[in-house]
């Protein structure tokens, strides 16, 4: 039978559409708009799904920098946590003593569980003690025993929290619909990007805070541990002078190196929403694009664990789920931010275990005049468990737990609900075809499933979703408020954000959206007399 011309045209159109769709699905990471890259040679990216040794990327000329790595004991703890799917680092307990406990009392309490505080397995981190236990005892049981000692205020395992986002296919959605939905252009008419004296700390996987250079690490080639020199560079949409006091608390909580390198992409994305350079003709806008960013690395990525593992002489690849954000590191980062001039902290991290240490650290930060925005959790479809530290939000006047909304002001499918939810902001929803776009590390360069020799110098426009992405909207708005009212308190920031929110969902505060969707212009415009 002869095919009519119209039918043939429809058939051809259908084939072209299918072919285009297949291309989009097959190569999601390269469809983002290209942005100016650092001047380094291009490399062949290994095929997704395979893990073949590809060409090693070549970095810029000059002596390579040696990357600081964590101790072997810590590497082994991360590896065991990954292999056993633990939400804590085994062999470690955090202890906080009462203010009234003197050294003799502290010694007695630790001795009561068989630890000699003068030994190397007790490490002090601020007002916390990290007790290392090699006996293999369950840290929960050890913490419970310690908690019973009269000198101890509390003790708990060194919980591993995780970043609250899911990288997503970047070929969907209209980019940065979120900032337009919140009418940020009109908010910037009132406070244009904030004040450079305001510092926002990003406690996360880090933001690369040094100029493009070669970094030498050890890694597993597939057959041997090799020394590997790779190019590492900052996001082209962040001016390095905007970074202040970078610290890596995953290496040490007491003497953190002042070199931060994002090897995961989450921290860079979050920081991008808070304050990516704006009006510079590159990539995206950030909310508080004039403020300074304090990159505080408190989360280890897969690659951090892999490099440290190889440096310790342990062969093979690290488990793919390696990494996380130990309480000892996040606690130290929050306190460092509070003591070093930050006015806002973004904490897009969480877990399902109660975490008194982080609650206390946040309380300390608030007492120092620091507002804290934190992600509410992405576990709605996984039983919607109570998440921490989000659940501490309502009890902390000056910290807010942020839920995630879609482009049409509905709850994102993954966004956790409950009494902890205080406020909502766009976090994207891939099921509705919208994600939050910022510039971050090119996924094809760092994909632990397919890459053996990663590089951390190339950035691409990337769509993420999660309450991790919602929280920096609130942190950015808080930074603008601090810029506008320099002596504002964290509690006042919370009041303003809460009372100017647009009530969505059930009338009044509800468990999905809290007090509603943030309204940046209303918060910055303030109230008249009626």
């Amino acid at each position, binding site marked *: 039978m002869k095919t009519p011309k119209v039918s043939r045209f429809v058939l051809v159109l259908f084939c072209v559409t299918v072919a285009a769709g297949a291309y989009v699905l097959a190569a999601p990471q390269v469809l983002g708009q290209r942005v100016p890259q650092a001047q380094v040679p291009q490399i062949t990216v290994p095929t997704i799904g395979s893990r073949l040794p590809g060409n090693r990327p070549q970095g810029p000329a000059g002596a390579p920098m040696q990357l600081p790595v964590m101790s072997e004991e810590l590497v082994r703890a991360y590896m065991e946590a990954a292999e056993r799917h633990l939400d804590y680092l085994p062999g470690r307990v955090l202890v906080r003593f009462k203010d009234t406990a003197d050294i003799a009392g502290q010694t007695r309490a630790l001795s009561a569980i068989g630890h000699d505080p003068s030994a190397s397995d007790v490490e002090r981190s601020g007002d916390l003690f990290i007790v290392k236990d090699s006996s293999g005892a369950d840290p929960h049981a050890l913490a419970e025993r310690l908690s019973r000692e009269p000198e101890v205020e509390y003790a708990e395992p060194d919980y591993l929290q995780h970043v609250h986002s899911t990288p997503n296919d970047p070929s969907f959605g209209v980019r940065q619909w979120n900032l337009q939905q919140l009418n940020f252009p*009109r908010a910037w*008419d*009132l406070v244009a990007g904030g004040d450079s004296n305001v510092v926002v700390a990003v406690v996360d996987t880090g933001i690369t805070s040094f100029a493009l250079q070669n970094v030498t690490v050890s890694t597993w080639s597939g057959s041997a541990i090799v020394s590997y020199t790779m190019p590492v560079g900052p996001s082209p949409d962040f001016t390095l002078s905007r970074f202040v006091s970078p610290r890596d608390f995953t290496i040490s909580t007491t003497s953190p190196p002042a070199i931060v390198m994002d090897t995961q992409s989450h921290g860079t994305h979050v920081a991008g929403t808070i304050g990516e350079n704006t009006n510079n003709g590159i990539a995206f806008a950030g909310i508080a694009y004039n403020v300074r960013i304090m990159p505080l690395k408190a989360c280890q990525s897969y690659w951090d664990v892999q490099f440290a593992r190889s440096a310790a002489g342990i062969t093979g690849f690290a488990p793919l789920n390696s990494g996380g954000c130990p309480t000892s590191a996040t606690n130290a980062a929050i306190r460092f931010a509070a003591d070093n001039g930050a006015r806002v902290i973004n904490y897009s991290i969480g877990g399902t275990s109660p975490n008194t240490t982080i609650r206390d650290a946040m309380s300390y930060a608030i007492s120092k005049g620091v507002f804290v925005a934190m992600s509410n959790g992405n576990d709605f479809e996984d039983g919607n468990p109570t998440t921490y530290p989000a659940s501490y939000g309502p009890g902390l006047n000056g910290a807010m737990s942020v839920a995630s909304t879609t482009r049409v002001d509905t709850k994102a499918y993954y966004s956790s609900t409950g009494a902890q939810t205080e406020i909502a902001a766009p976090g994207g929803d891939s099921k509705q075809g919208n994600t939050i776009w910022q510039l971050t590390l090119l996924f094809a360069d760092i994909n632990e499933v397919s890459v053996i020799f990663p590089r951390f110098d190339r950035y691409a426009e990337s769509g993420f979703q999660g309450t991790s992405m919602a929280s920096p909207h609130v942190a950015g708005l808080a930074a603008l408020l601090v810029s*506008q*009212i320099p002596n*504002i308190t964290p*509690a*006042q920031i919370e*009041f*303003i954000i809460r*009372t100017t929110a647009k009530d969505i969902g059930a009338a009044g505060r509800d468990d999905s959206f809290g007090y509603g969707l943030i309204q940046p*212009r209303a918060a*910055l*415009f*303030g*109230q*008249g*007399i*009626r």
Partner: protein
Amino acid sequence: MRTPLIVLVAAVVCVASGAATPALAGQGGSTQKPPAQTAKPKPKTPKLPVGFRFFGAVESMSMTASDTFEAQNGSPILLGYGAGAEVLNIWKKIFLRVGYSTASVDGTRGFVIDNEFVSNGIPLKLGVQNFELGVGWRSYIKKHQWIAWYFSGGLNMATNSQESPDPEPGDNDSVSGNGFVGTVGFEFALQKKAKHPLFVGFEGAYRSVGGVLGESGISEGFGETDLGGFSIRGLVGLRFRK
């Protein structure tokens, strides 16, 4: 707040004592024989001629919403000006009054948090306008016919406008409400024998106007709903009579 109250009380006392003087003088002869009840018929009080009074005024308003206006102005007292007209002696000593006054304040926007105003520095220009329609009673002090005193009461329509730069629709607006006003005042003719004398006057007034403040914004934060308050006015004007 206290100063205008004291002035108002003093004014009322002065008015009352001024009015009482002739009566007391009459009582001074109480030991004498009262006049015969069958005396000649009471002389007919001459009908007072209808007159007009026009004035301009400066006004110091101490707002009832004191915290709201103190947050904007540094003080709950607003300075304004106005004008008015009266028709005198429409029936005996009763007069009708129409008055208008306006005041403005340059403040800032912000929030009330824990009963404390937190300014964000965005300019906020406030206006308060009062339109008054009243009826009153007016009399002259017998021995000093160049001094008059009066009181009046009536309706007061108040309008509050607020304006900031770079507004969104609905940000800059004005809202009106109705209430009442009561006034007590003196008038001193500067030209004692002139038919149309120039005069100065002093008034104390109290206004109460609901329905404008208190539903949102800074006034809601302070729980203040009344756009009225006490006022002290200085008047200058001309009096005409037929």
